[in-house]
C-alpha cells in the first residue's frame, strides 16, 4: 500500500514537471476555449514546419462555398524520425478536425484531434492514414 502511494505521488510530480516543459507557447492564448468547432474537409497542404506544423484544409460550407482553414498541429521532427513524409498523408485526404477557433476570428484553429472517415484518429507516427490509426 505504501509503495502504491509512493508511485501515485511520483506520478503526480512527473506530470507536474511535464506540464512545465512541454508547451512551446500558450495555445489557450492563441485559440478560444469558448469556440470549439468541428470541421470536415479535405487536405490541401501540410506545412511540416517548426515549432508547429500547419494543415491547410478545404471546408465546404452549407451553401456550397469552399473555404480554406489553417489547422495547427505538432512539431514534425519526431514524425520525420519515424519515417513520416508529406506523402504519408496524401493531398485530398478527408479529415474531420475537432478543435478550437483562433481568438483573432480568422479561419484558423488548433487541431485537437484529426479524425479519419472511419472514425479513428489519425496517428501520424504510423503509416497514416491507413496504417496504424489510433482508435477512439
Amino acid at each position, binding site marked *: 500500500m505504501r509503495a502504491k502511494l509512493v508511485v501515485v505521488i511520483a506520478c503526480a510530480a*512527473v506530470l507536474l514537471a511535464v506540464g512545465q*516543459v512541454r*508547451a512551446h507557447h500558450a495555445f489557450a492564448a492563441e485559440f478560444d476555449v469558448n469556440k470549439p468547432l468541428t470541421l470536415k474537409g479535405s487536405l490541401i497542404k501540410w506545412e511540416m514546419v517548426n515549432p508547429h506544423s500547419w494543415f491547410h484544409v478545404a471546408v465546404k460550407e452549407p451553401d456550397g462555398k469552399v473555404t480554406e482553414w489553417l489547422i495547427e498541429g505538432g512539431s514534425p*521532427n519526431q*514524425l520525420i524520425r519515424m519515417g513520416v513524409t508529406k506523402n504519408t498523408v496524401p493531398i485530398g485526404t478527408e479529415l474531420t478536425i475537432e478543435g*478550437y477557433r483562433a*481568438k*483573432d476570428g480568422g479561419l484558423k484553429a488548433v487541431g485537437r484531434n484529426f479524425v479519419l472517415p472511419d472514425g479513428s484518429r489519425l496517428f501520424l507516427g504510423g503509416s497514416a492514414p491507413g496504417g496504424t490509426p489510433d482508435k477512439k
Partner: protein
Amino acid sequence: MNRRSLVSIGALVLGVGVLSASLVAQQVATPLAKPAPAAKAAAPTGKPYTPPTTPDGQPDLQGFWTNSTYVPLERPQGVTKEYYTPAEAEAAINAAADREAEQTEPGTTADVHYDFSQFGLDRSQSKFAASLRTSLIIDPPDGKMPPVNAQGQKRAADRAAARKQAGGQYDSVQNMPIGSRCIIMGGSGPPMMNAGYNANYQIVQAPGYVMILTEMIHDARIIPLDNRAQASQGVRQWTGLSRGRWEGNTLVVETTNFNGKNPFRGASENLKVTERFTRTADDMIDYKFTVEDPATWDRAWTAEAPLAKTDGPIFEFACHETNYGIPNILAGARAEEKAKAEQAKKGSN
C-alpha cells in the same frame, strides 16, 4: 489514445537494477513497435567499460543522444528514498505514459492543444533514458533544490516587477516568453535539461574541441579543450561560454558568462555550471551537472541526467521562420481588447 506497451521497461529496469543500484539508462524503441531488448547498458561482466577513442585519442562521446526521461528534477513530495524498486519505477513510467496518452476534457484550457500522441511526441513514443532514481538531483541528498536565498528572492521580485511594468504578456512580442519567441529553449542549457520532446543532441569531436548541437533550438556549443582562459566578463552569451578538459575518461566543461536573459531556475548572470560527461556504455553517457550561484543558492547542487543513445540525424528546428503562433496570439489579444472596448461602449450608452 491507445495504451502504450511499456512492459519491457520493467524488465529493463529490473535487469540492470539487480546488477547495481546505480544509474540505469537505456533506449526504448517506439512503443508501437516491439520495445528494444534490455540492457546493453551494463554488461554483467564486472569489467569496467572502456570507451572507444577518437583518432586523436580523446574518449569518444560522438553520436546522437537524448536526455528524455520520466525522472523529475526534484524528488516528489512523500518520497524519501533515492531509488525506486524496479516495480515502482515501472509503475510510475507506465502511469505517466498512460496519462500523457489520455484525451483531455473538452472545454477546458488544457484541451486547447493538439494531441501530442498523434504527432509521436509522447515520451513513450521515442527513445528515453530510464532510471530507478526518484529525482535527477543527487545533491542535496534530499533530492530537492536548495532554498533560494534572500538575494535570489529579491532578484525574482525585481524581475517580476519589471515584467509588470512592461505591461501584459501579450501587449507586445517583447513581453512574451523567449522560448515562445524561438530564441532559446531549456534543452540548450547548460545545464542541458529535458526539453519534453525533440530532446536530442549530437556530439562531435575534433582535435582540441567538442561541439554539442541541441535539436531544439539548433544551438551549437563549441567547447575548446586547450586550457585557454575564460573570456572577459564583458563577453556574455545566451548559453554562456564553455571551457572543457579531460579528467581521465570524463569530459569536464565549466561554463560562465551567461547573459542573464534566460535565467536558469532564477539564477543570476554569474551562474557557474560544471558538467561531467562519462561514457559508461556504448549506448549511455553519464551526464552530471553542478550549479553554483551564491547570489541565488547558499550551496551548490548537482543532478544526474543520463544521455541515452538515439537515432540521428538531428533534424532542423527552424523555429522563428514559421512561428505563426506569435502573430496569432497578438492578433487574438487585440481582438479581445477591441471586443471588450465595444462592450464597454455599449454599456455606457
